[in-house]
């Protein structure tokens, strides 16, 4: 594969950083973004702009006017459309090099392994808004040996970590199981500053790009927390948890679990921040 003149121009600032060789790695790369919302929107936009060749988008929601405060991949004209269609339209408009694959469904123990296998994705971005999906994605990635980026955002803050098989802790090492109904507020209840999703979603895209390039240090073995009000980032070193139920010394979990969404939250299932 040779870069065209147009690609040499489009990706010229990338090529200064990591050469045509690095750019070809991105063009050959496949990243799955689960959730086309507050995190997935900025993540997918930057992945597409950088020239990541295959981007999968999973979401079963439609664009709502209240999404546009943070979900910048969608526009006023796309209110009422399926999020995957709206996202595809924006990404293809930004960069026609990108093969956008859409999955208009929620992830569960049946669909998620099929979606990951569909294009043999190299890296997965958890941009979901709910704990059943977060634990499901973690477990699918640990059991299947896939690297992924976890993130969560609420109010003026967020957190993110990167899991790479065999390198550092997984999400369940830190949070052993689902919080009970009502224990943790949702964005709908607590609010979310859109730009916080931008900061954290861009970090997730950065991790995916670094992974594809094989360059730099990933956010493995640490949880990065961000507080927009104090403008403080903390990179908290996290050890592997020998008692972890899925990647510990004596794991109890050997298959995917479909947790119920706590009843106090809106719809059962999935969605995106």
């Amino acid at each position, binding site marked *: 594969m040779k870069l065209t003149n147009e690609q040499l121009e489009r990706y010229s600032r990338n090529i200064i950083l990591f050469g045509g060789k690095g750019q070809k790695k991105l063009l050959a790369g496949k990243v799955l973004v689960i959730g086309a919302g507050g995190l997935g929107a900025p993540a997918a936009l930057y992945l597409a702009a950088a020239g990541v060749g295959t981007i999968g988008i999973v979401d079963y929601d439609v664009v709502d006017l209240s999404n546009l405060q943070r979900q910048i991949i969608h526009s006023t004209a796309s209110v009422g459309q399926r999020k995957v269609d709206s996202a595809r339209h924006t990404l293809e408009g930004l960069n026609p090099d990108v093969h956008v694959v859409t999955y208009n469904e929620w992830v569960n123990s049946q669909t998620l392994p099929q979606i990951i296998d569909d294009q043999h994705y190299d890296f997965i971005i958890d941009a979901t808004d*709910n704990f059943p999906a977060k634990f499901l994605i973690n477990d699918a990635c640990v059991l299947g040996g896939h690297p992924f980026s976890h993130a969560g955002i609420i109010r003026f803050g967020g957190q993110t970590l990167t899991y790479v098989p065999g390198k550092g802790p997984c999400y369940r090492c830190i*949070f052993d199981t689902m919080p009970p109904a009502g224990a943790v507020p949702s964005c*709908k209840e607590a609010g979310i500053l859109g730009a916080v999703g931008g900061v954290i979603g861009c970090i997730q895209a950065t991790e995916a790009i670094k992974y594809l390039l094989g360059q730099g240090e990933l956010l493995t073995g640490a949880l990065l927390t961000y507080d927009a009000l104090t403008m403080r980032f903390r990179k908290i070193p996290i050890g592997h948890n020998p008692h972890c139920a899925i990647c510990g010394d004596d794991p109890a979990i050997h298959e995917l679990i479909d947790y119920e969404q706590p009843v106090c939250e809106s719809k059962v299932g999935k969605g995106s921040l």
Partner: protein
Amino acid sequence: MTIQVNGDPFQTEKPLSVTELLKEARVEAPEYVTVQLNQQFIRRDDFDTTVLHDGDAVDFLYYMGGGSR
């Protein structure tokens, strides 16, 4: 003595257990917080009996999931 709590110094006159620190530091919903002491996870069952010493570093880690559409 001084303990580092989420990166900030926290002064205390007397030795505290993890459970007592959660109260003193006014942690919201302490029953759902994950605690690391000097980069080792402390099991919830051991919160009462784990006593903190001068110079210890404690991290409170919170669920963050959101949930809006």
